[in-house]
């Protein structure tokens, strides 16, 4: 059983498991949506004193912060007890494309060239990661949700706004991947 969990899961198992998470939260009376935690954390840090958007009782979102803490533990569990040492099975076309950008595929989850910590993240990488984070935080709140809130919860509830948001995710993603990344790397 443990060996089975340790291996990378096929897409259908993963998809079923994500649907199960969404359904579980619905049965608990909650809606699956991760990015609203970012707003809650801003509120806890005191942003509500000056900006109205953050002036709400964060305790009503306590459950989602607990979910967030759990996801950190889940990540840790997957890197320790459930760790898989096989290299990631990335398509050869992607490996080639990334090589063209000067990013060498190392078989891990994320490229050490961008996320490497041991050698100290370079200044350029730190700026890129910070800028990417700002785009994610600003964009998800502007759109009122991220992959979980729109692509999973919203589409499951047949929400047209969520479909528009997902189209937006791809407009931005394709623009970054095909036009901007070659300029950045």
């Amino acid at each position, binding site marked *: 059983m443990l060996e089975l969990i340790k291996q*990378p899961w096929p897409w*259908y198992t*993963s998809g*079923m498991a*994500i*649907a199960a*998470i969404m*359904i579980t*939260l*619905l049965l*608990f*009376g909650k*809606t699956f949506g*991760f990015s609203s935690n*970012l*707003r809650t954390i801003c509120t806890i840090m005191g942003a509500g004193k000056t*900006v109205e*958007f953050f002036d709400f009782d964060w305790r009503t979102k306590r459950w989602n912060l*607990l*979910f967030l803490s759990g*996801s*950190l533990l*889940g*990540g*840790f*569990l997957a*890197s320790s007890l*459930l760790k898989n040492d096989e290299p990631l099975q*990335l398509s050869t076309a992607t490996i080639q*494309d990334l090589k063209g950008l000067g990013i060498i595929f190392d078989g891990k*989850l994320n490229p050490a060239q*961008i*996320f490497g*910590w041991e050698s100290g993240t370079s200044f350029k*990488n730190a700026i890129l*990661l*910070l*800028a*990417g*984070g*700002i*785009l*994610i935080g*600003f*964009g998800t709140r502007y*759109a*009122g949700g991220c*992959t*979980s809130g729109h692509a*999973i919860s*919203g589409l*499951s509830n047949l929400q047209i*706004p*969520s479909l528009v948001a997902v189209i*937006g995710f791809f407009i*931005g993603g*394709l623009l*970054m991947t*095909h036009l*901007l990344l070659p300029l950045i790397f």
Partner: protein
Amino acid sequence: MKGLRYILTGLVFGVIMVKSEAVSWYRIQEMFRFQSFHMYGIIGTAVFLGIVAVFFIKKLGLKDTEGQPITIPNKEQGWRRYLIGGSIFGLGWALTGACPGPMFVNIGYGYWSMIIVVTGALLGTYLYGVFQKKLPH
């Protein structure tokens, strides 16, 4: 300890995100280059099953664990905020390879530099709050 169930659900979510490799920068690149079915298969399966589940939850009028009828709030109408906000998020998603869930899962996994992404995401969220009323929605 009523909160424990949320921690446990989150823990399972974190494991799923790693085992599905949805936390992988490489997989997100592969997705935006249309070079593998992997990510589309994951999201497609989840949405298909989600649609079926939500249909039956509504049809059968199921109640949650508190005994309240399960209601799923509809999204506000409009398209500007979804298209513009969504596109801005997409830029960051393809750059960092992380959406809000996976950036925390990655920290748990040991990718400490994701803390920089989370810091940026908090800053971006704050900026949205500041400029909210000036933006087209």
